């Protein structure tokens, strides 16, 4: 189950990144650096919330004595947010949420390897372009 949750988190993170990248293009920054800075400033916050904060909001339970619990009670959200099964960081919490966090971190750790597929795809495209010939000078492209 934790693997499914972790894969879902990683997938949603990837979708969020792409969506924010496209939206930042519309912001009309003067420089590429400004655009990139604006994009990643938003991306990391969303990904962090999606990876870490949401898991806490769903699984942990806070009392009304604290500021967060008090605000949620005032807003009428105390039954929705921070109303999970774990009142503290117990062994059961580590078994369920801790494992999910670790799996997500591990999946994100090895995900960059998939970028290498871009090299393989371009190599296959080149191979098709020269009709799978070993002669590197052959091409169908107009030079």
């Amino acid at each position, binding site marked *: 189950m934790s693997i499914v949750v972790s894969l879902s988190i990683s997938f949603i993170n990837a979708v969020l990144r792409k969506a924010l990248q496209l939206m930042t293009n519309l912001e009309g920054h003067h420089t590429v650096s400004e655009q990139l800075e604006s*994009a990643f400033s938003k991306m990391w916050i969303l990904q962090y919330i999606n*990876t870490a904060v949401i898991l806490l909001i769903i699984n942990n339970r806070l*009392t009304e004595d604290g500021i967060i619990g008090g605000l949620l009670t005032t807003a009428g959200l105390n039954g929705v947010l921070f109303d999970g099964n774990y009142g*503290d960081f117990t062994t059961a919490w580590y078994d369920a949420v801790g494992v999910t966090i670790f799996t997500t971190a591990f999946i*994100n750790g*090895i995900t960059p390897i998939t970028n290498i597929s871009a090299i393989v795809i371009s190599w296959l495209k080149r191979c098709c372009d020269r009709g799978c010939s070993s002669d590197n000078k052959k091409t169908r492209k107009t030079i």
Partner: protein
Amino acid sequence: MAYTGGIIAYDNRFSVLIAMIWTIMTFSAAIPALYFAGILLCFVAYWTDKTLFVKFYKIPPKHGSDLAHKARNIIEWSLVMHLFMGLYMLSNEDIFTNLEEDNDAVEFLKGYAAFVGSGVSALTGVSTDRFGQVHTVLYSVGVSIFLILFIIEKVSGTFSRIIGKICCCCLYKDAEPDIFSNDLYCDISSDA
């Protein structure tokens, strides 16, 4: 050049790194295995990006080191999250049992530890008693020392200057602005 890839997406790369480092730092005080995931992420990201940069991507625009510095500044703040989240997680009496009930040295610092943990207590509503355990008291002292040094560094940059002087060859290589930047408005302004 017909099959050269696109331009490397720095925003994508930096955002993943920052988000994952923040996630790892948030929980790593009580889940040290996350550090291995962090090492794996840094190692894999470095080598795949380096390989793609050399063999696949187009030559990108000149960005300088501003983006990297901005990313580093964001990552630095994850230390504060790490310390306070660690205080909250490690102070759970059911897991980290306190065996030394009467420790005079720790008794002296109990109130102080409760003060350090008061932020966590105020936010989450947990009892301040949990911050009176021996290991939590020692942890709180460490947190305070670090925070004082962190604030000094953020306000004055003292430690960066010291490290910069010690390691002058490997830091601040691009302190001087580029003659040709990718910022047109900066280039044509009177200050440039």
